[in-house]
């Protein structure tokens, strides 16, 4: 057996370092991705974090976009969940407020999470929310009703071809997945 080019000990050491490096890399990927998504603004379909209004954003009065609202209740969750308006017209760059009504008719306390989804896909990353009840889980005690706000704008960089956008929320029961975070969004109006 001729002498190997590199000693076994050294090779083992290099391979072990490789394994450790890959492990560390996986952990680092979490903050890495947070950074990348922040810098590139990738928010895509599941935008449940607040967008910032770019300073100097101009309202584009030359065109209007029609925004439709829709809601879905997932599974057997016994909630009432509707938008207070079905449509509105918005100029790109303008910030508007819309409320969604939710009522807990399950007969017990619940924690729910609304997950947004936007169509068409080409428009999704341009509809930005600065405040939304979907950013956090929402706690409802028995029979509670609330109006939940969404402040949003459509980025003026959106393609001129897009004339209609649909913003839809699906309400999920997350009582078993309660997170350690503030229980509801700013501006939520509880109705008695």
């Amino acid at each position, binding site marked *: 057996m001729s002498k190997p080019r590199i000693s076994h000990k050294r090779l083992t050491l290099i391979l072990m370092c490789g394994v450790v490096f890959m492990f560390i890399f996986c952990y680092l990927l979490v903050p890495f991705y947070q950074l990348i998504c922040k810098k590139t603004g990738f928010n895509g379909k599941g935008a449940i974090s607040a967008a910032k209004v770019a300073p100097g954003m101009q309202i584009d009065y030359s065109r209007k976009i029609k925004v439709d609202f829709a809601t879905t209740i*997932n599974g057997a969750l016994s909630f*009432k969940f509707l938008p207070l308006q079905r449509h509105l017209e918005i100029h790109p760059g303008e910030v508007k407020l819309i*409320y969604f009504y939710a009522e807990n008719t399950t007969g017990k306390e619940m924690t729910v999470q609304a997950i947004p989804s936007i169509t068409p896909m080409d428009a999704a990353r341009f509809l930005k929310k600065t405040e939304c009840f979907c950013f956090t889980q929402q706690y409802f005690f028995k029979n509670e009703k609330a109006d939940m706000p969404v402040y949003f704008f459509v980025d003026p960089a959106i393609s001129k071809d897009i004339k209609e956008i649909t913003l839809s929320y699906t309400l999920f029961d997350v009582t078993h997945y309660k997170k350690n975070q503030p229980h509801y969004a700013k501006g939520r109006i509880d109705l008695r």
Partner: protein
Amino acid sequence: MKNYGRFIVLLSLSLLTSLSYATSGINMPYGVSLLSHEIYYLHMAGFYVCCGIGAIVFSVLIYSLIKHRKSKGVKAVHFHEHLGVEILWTTIPFLILVALAVPATIVLKHIHNTDQSALTLKITGYQWKWKYEYLDQNISFFSNLATTQEQINNNAPKNPWFLLEVDNEVVVPVNTKVKLLITADDVVHSWWVPELGIKQDAIPGFINENWFYITKPGTYRGQCGELCGMNHGFMPIVVKAVSQTEFNQWVNAHQKLAYKKRHDDAVTLQKAHAAIHHLTLKNGGGLS
């Protein structure tokens, strides 16, 4: 024996080329929607291109299989490369592909244009049924397979629409652009009606859109297009396209059923609005 190869290839080719008629039941339907027409033409264009290329390649091959046999005393000619011919049969297919890609791109752009629809229909896929909501008319109902288990188990004669019939059909007006918002409740389903040229996946938690514009009244049937569990094959779709007057009548009839539910929701909404207006008056915030 030696003619079998030729026979089988020719048989296959002739089978393929004889289906130029969309109504034969072995081709994609021409359909009744603007989109289904465009898709049909694109499909036939792709098919003819393939037939053309196939005819050329296979005729050269078959010619060679017959003429260049050792049993006929043929000696092999030794050529094994030719840059010119390689470049030729790289560029010509490339150009053919470009020619196909152009109409495909145009049709795709049309599919993506859901603007200015007169009616919005929200479709939710469930295991194993569909829920339809007419968002602006406040109508909502489930649509289940109507074929009985006896028919499926061969204990009763099958009626002509076996596995393609439902209890509550989707009714839409003809000559109206209908926008579809599609989602699901549990697993991934897909809403597919061949004659409308529509297939769109229903994904839980997400919303997809599509549209149709039906030009002819009639009943159009489809099925779920994504494996969703045990009864994936048992959740059909039935769309009935009727005149605008019939549609209005149908809406009224259904709204009467839904009246009480809607009334409750309206009262709730009014109360909520009052609260908001009260608030906004105090804070001077805007609401449109």
